[in-house]
């Protein structure tokens, strides 16, 4: 496969490991802000390759995991409307709400019509094929998936597919990173930055880390050599007391990013304050559908009142997504909470920190 094998060379991995070991850094925390990185790091056993004193912590980079459980309850309530077909990325189906017996999977058992789709365009096709039903697409994800939702919505507008709507759970990553840095609850010395979000935002989308926080960040690819190379660059910056943002993933990420994708998002969505599991309410961190497209906004169409009250539960996903604890430190991990019977979203999502830690638990 193009590019993939090029960045898995074992000699390169060995050299980079040694180089990281030779750096003069003590007790540093590097946060990865992308669920795909979390999984790639676990799969390649990268945490075990690093010397003591370089800690990798997972951040709020899994969209399913940062969606509050109250929002899952809102979706499941909507799903029980007999006129509605809920269309969603498969990741969402098993995510529990505020109780273990609330999920789209459980709603489906009670008769709700829920279809997993690969793309927002598949959801639009289902709407076209079912003109007498209402089709709601659950729009979830960061800057990489929001353009796909925006495109489907623009297409529905153009083709007057009036039985199609989107329930937007979309979020943007910059306010969450700022919130983490400003709360100072977690010590973060550098960021392994999300390669595919950066394809859309460009390197320029992360320069605020350098200009405003003087903290090192490297936009990274997802192969072992990419990740180790990026970690070396971050740790070296920390050792030298620098705080620059660099781009390791140059085969896909430009400085400017993908403006066509950003324009689509801007056309359809506007920022709104939004709740993140673990991080709470963050200003301008969510995406709401603009008034122009409000007849395709499920919140407006079905008069959904979003629950803004967050309950306390024994599940520690909130602490996991902000890097405060390792999944294994949650009292439910591997006991009440396992992939087959998850309590929290971090154990459900294929990109969740708990799912990654559970799947690769025997490597440690």
């Amino acid at each position: 496969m193009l590019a993939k094998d090029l960045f898995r060379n074992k000699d390169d991995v060995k050299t980079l490991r040694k180089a990281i070991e030779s750096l003069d850094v003590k007790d540093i925390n590097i946060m990865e802000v992308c669920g795909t990185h979390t999984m790639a790091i676990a799969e390649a056993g990268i945490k075990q390759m690093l010397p003591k004193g370089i800690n990798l912590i997972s951040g709020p980079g899994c969209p399913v995991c940062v969606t509050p459980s109250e929002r899952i309850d809102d979706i499941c309530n909507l799903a029980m409307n007999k006129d509605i077909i809920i269309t969603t990325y498969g990741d969402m189906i098993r995510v529990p709400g505020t109780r273990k017996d609330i999920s789209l999977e459980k709603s489906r058992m009670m008769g709700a019509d829920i279809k997993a789709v690969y793309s927002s365009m598949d959801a639009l096709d289902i709407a076209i094929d079912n003109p007498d039903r209402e089709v709601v697409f659950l729009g979830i994800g960061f800057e990489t998936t929001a353009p796909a939702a925006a495109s489907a919505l623009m297409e529905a507008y153009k083709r007057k597919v009036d039985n199609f709507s989107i329930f937007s759970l979309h979020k943007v990553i910059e306010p969450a990173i700022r919130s983490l840095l400003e709360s100072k609850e977690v010590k973060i010395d550098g960021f392994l930055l999300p390669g595919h979000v950066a394809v859309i935002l460009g390197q320029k989308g992360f320069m605020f880390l350098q200009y405003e926080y003087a903290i090192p960040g490297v936009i990274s690819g997802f192969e072992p050599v990419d990740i180790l190379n990026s970690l070396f660059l971050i740790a070296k910056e920390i050792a030298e007391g620098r705080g620059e943002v660099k781009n390791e993933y140059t085969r896909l990420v430009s400085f400017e990013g993908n403006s066509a994708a950003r324009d689509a998002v801007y056309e359809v969505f506007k920022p709104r304050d939004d709740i993140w599991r673990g991080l709470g309410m963050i200003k301008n961190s969510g995406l709401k559908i603009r008034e122009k497209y409000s007849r395709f906004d499920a919140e407006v169409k079905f008069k959904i009142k979003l629950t803004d009250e967050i309950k306390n539960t024994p599940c520690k996903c909130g602490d996991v997504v902000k890097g405060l604890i390792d999944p294994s430190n949650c009292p439910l991990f591997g006991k009440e909470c396992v992939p087959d019977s998850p309590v929290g979203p971090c154990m459900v999502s294929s990109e969740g920190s708990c799912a990654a830690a559970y799947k690769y638990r025997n490597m440690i």
Partner: protein
Amino acid sequence: MMCLAVPLKIVSINEKNAVAEMDGIKRNIRIDFIKNAEVGDYVIVHAGFAIEKLTRKMAQENLEAVREVVNACKGFVQKQG
């Protein structure tokens, strides 16, 4: 899964729709966000949408940049003893 990004090769194009394949498996994708997409191009696909082209040249240049770091590391490691 929504966040999984995969490189696919475009085999046919019809306006904003395209068919792309990997290992013989074909998939309908959208190319709204790709300028001048052509049959034969590799694209990274996220949730059914191509988000960027991936060229062999860019992959090679990226690898060279990584190798520069790796080579510098070799000298660096030796120097540190």
